[in-house]
């Protein structure tokens, strides 16, 4: 089989430029912490729950520490100091902090070495727990059968976690491999994580640790019933990226939407905050064996998918470079792209397929996530179902890994039960019917598709080199991504960015990176079918 002939020298150039871009921003990322990272450290150390006003305890403790100017040392430093100062265990200190009996600004700072010894022990225990959950997942993946890719990814979004469970289990029984619980609209801009099981939401269901647990339990049940491991997805994005990653790691979520720039561009979250948060959140995801999904499809929701195709590729390169620096393995980096061209374009399918094949060749080990038509779905459910079919065909031909199924009622309502059944039926029919087509066809040398792919690659490469020359943050300020301009000091969340002091301490990055970068670390992500 002959695949698209792509200029690999150009691919190397693009990757090198992306690497320069990531290196350019890394020193900034390393110099700061954020309120969300510190709240995440608290969560990992076992702080959970809310006060009588429903304010999460991690927020209360971190806000107090920030107001007292303690956060620059890292919350872990002060928790460790409190343990030594009070001669108390971690649970005791947490209980005293939670009940207001102890305030960190009353704690005498302790010797850094002593603090490290005290906290390190606790952090190791938490990390062992996360590793245990990862191994549990791997056990289930190995034990249960796995289907062949593309894996069918389905969304539930009722607003009520218990209703979501019913819908998710039904979708799994119909053949869905991956269930994503869409978040309530606006959660990405909350600077805290809601608490407990929730039954009210708008356009989705709140991401809470309790909701994660309820859905994971339900899907474990469904996995056993269906005889294959059903994966759970949520959103590690917005102002609480690190905390959501921690919650996911503690509740064995399998995938996380986790883009390096989405929040900056599309939610107007401060860029510094986002770059710092994404780095730490991705370390957690890497350690927990989570597959991240990046959000390149969003570039095409307002921009034209044909004209702006190169921005998708450029973003994939940047997401890859940044993800690698957080310790994610190539197999954990589910780069996104989308089937969003205007259906009226002559040869549109060829351009879509060229883009999908190109991504497959350039990122051979990435579990690519392919997003369905949404922008040009009209409410004509019959044509929409056909467009989804063409998308499914492109997915199976180009060997995508994760296929987010298009729903015929896109643009009408959040999917109904039968809409999901029809979407899964559509995908199963086409992917079974054309299962090995990929191995039988080759593309015409110098044909429309090959030309198109190389054009997009050339444009992406030149864009990346331009960005590398002026730096990523300047490029965003100039509106080079999605034509959206964001100021370095603008957007939400900058007030939660704190420069680290000399004695800053966070035990987790070291533990994570040591494990992730060791040659023994090789999380099992899929069944045997994918490896072969």
């Amino acid at each position: 089989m002959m695949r698209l002939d792509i200029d690999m020298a150009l691919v190397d150039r693009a990757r090198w430029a992306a690497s320069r871009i990531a290196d350019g921003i890394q020193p900034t990322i390393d110099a700061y912490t954020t309120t969300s990272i510190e709240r995440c450290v608290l969560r990992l150390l076992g702080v959970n729950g809310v006060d009588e006003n429903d304010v999460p305890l991690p927020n209360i403790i971190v806000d107090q520490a920030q107001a007292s100017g303690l956060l620059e040392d890292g919350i872990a430093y002060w928790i460790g100091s409190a343990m030594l100062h009070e001669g108390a265990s971690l649970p005791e200190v947490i209980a005293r902090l939670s009940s207001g009996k102890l305030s960190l600004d009353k704690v005498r700072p302790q010797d850094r070495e002593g603090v490290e010894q005290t906290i390190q022990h606790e952090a190791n225990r938490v990390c062992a727990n996360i590793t245990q959950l990862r191994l549990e997942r791997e056990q289930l993946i190995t034990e249960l059968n796995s289907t062949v890719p593309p894996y069918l990814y389905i969304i539930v979004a009722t607003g009520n976690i218990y209703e979501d469970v019913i819908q998710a289990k039904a979708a799994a029984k119909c053949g869905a491999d991956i269930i994503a619980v869409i978040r309530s609209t606006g959660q990405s801009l909350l600077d805290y994580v809601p608490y407990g099981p929730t039954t009210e939401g708008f356009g989705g269901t709140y991401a809470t640790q309790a909701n994660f647990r309820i859905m994971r339990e339900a899907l474990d049940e469904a996995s056993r019933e269906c005889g294959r491991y059903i994966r759970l997805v949520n959103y590690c994005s917005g102002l609480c990226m690190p905390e959501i990653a921690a919650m996911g790691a503690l509740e064995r979520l399998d995938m996380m939407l986790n883009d390096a720039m989405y929040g900056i561009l599309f939610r107007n979250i401060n860029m510094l905050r986002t770059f710092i948060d994404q780095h730490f959140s991705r370390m957690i995801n890497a350690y927990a064996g989570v597959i991240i999904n990046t959000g390149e499809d969003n570039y095409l929701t307002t921009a034209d998918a044909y004209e702006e195709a190169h921005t998708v590729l450029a973003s994939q390169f940047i997401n890859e470079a940044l993800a690698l620096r957080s310790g994610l393995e190539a197999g954990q980096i589910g780069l996104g792209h989308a089937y969003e061209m205007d259906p009226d374009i002559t040869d549109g399918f060829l351009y879509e397929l060229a883009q999908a094949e190109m991504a497959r060749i350039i990122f051979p080990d990435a579990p690519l996530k392919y997003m369905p038509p949404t922008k040009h779905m009209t409410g004509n459910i019959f044509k929409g179902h056909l467009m989804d079919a063409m998308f499914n065909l492109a997915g199976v031909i180009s060997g995508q890994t994760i296929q987010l199924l298009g729903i015929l009622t896109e643009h009408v309502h959040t999917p109904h039960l039968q809409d999901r059944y029809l979407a899964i039926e559509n995908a199963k029919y086409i992917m079974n019917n054309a299962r090995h087509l990929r191995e039988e066809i080759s593309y015409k040398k110098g044909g429309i598709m090959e030309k198109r792919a190389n054009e997009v690659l050339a444009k992406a490469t030149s864009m990346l080199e331009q960005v590398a020359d002026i730096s990523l943050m300047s490029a965003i300020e100039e509106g080079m991504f999605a034509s959206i301009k964001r100021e370095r000091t603008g957007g939400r969340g900058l007030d939660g960015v704190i420069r680290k002091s000399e004695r800053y301490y966070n035990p987790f990055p070291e533990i994570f990176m040591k494990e992730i970068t060791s040659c023994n670390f090789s999380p099992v992500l899929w069944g045997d079918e994918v490896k072969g």
Partner: protein
Amino acid sequence: MDVNMTRIRPYGDTLDDGYMQLSFTLPVPLSAEARKAAEILAEKMGLEDVKVVYAHSIADSFSFFVVYGRCIHSVDMTAIDIPKVDADFMSYEEINEFIEKRIGRKIVVVAACTGTDAHTVGIDAIINMKGYRGEYGLERYPWFVTYNLGSQVPNEDLVAKAIQVDADAILVSQVVTQRNIHIDNLTHLAELVEAEGIRDRVLLIVGGPRISHELAIELGYDAGFGPGTLPSHVGSFIAQALERSIRNRAEAKGAYPCQMNP
């Protein structure tokens, strides 16, 4: 074909045969009884000769049906009166020329997705330079000054901005409509504009995939734009409605600006 406009019925392949198709799911396992239930339900909806042409089990506990039947009802279309956006749609050039000649100053527009809504696709398509479907957004029009405040803007902020820049029109976009959250939010905005005492000098316009002009009028807005709306549609409406209101105000005062003469 001799269609009686006072008795309109669905058309399958013969006039007035009343044929309709529908599909739905019942929360019961598939069985002969479930099939019958689907048939009875369709009859209760006003269909006769009901045929359940397809039935399929979903996840063991639900049943999906495709049903055909002949609708016994008819509708008198001559009795229907629907409010429509009152504007002659013009092109980019025509709109600019219209504003230049008939209004003689730039039109100021503030726009936002308000409430919890984070979906700026619609408002961006209408306002932003880039526009939509090959048409420029209002930002690109030399005779419009636009402020796109983005997503999740509190209604209070939108109105404050409108007052600050002395806006001629407020554009609000609502995409999320779960549990009618958009109705509450739009009502709140209309009340706010009223309370601030600027209702008579600002055009209040709403857009979104589930928005109709009829709904907009009901909520006290000047216009509502649904799916498929282009920047020039909104631009035409604003220009013409503003011109009308300036003229009305001038006439009320007894003056008649000279540039109104054709």
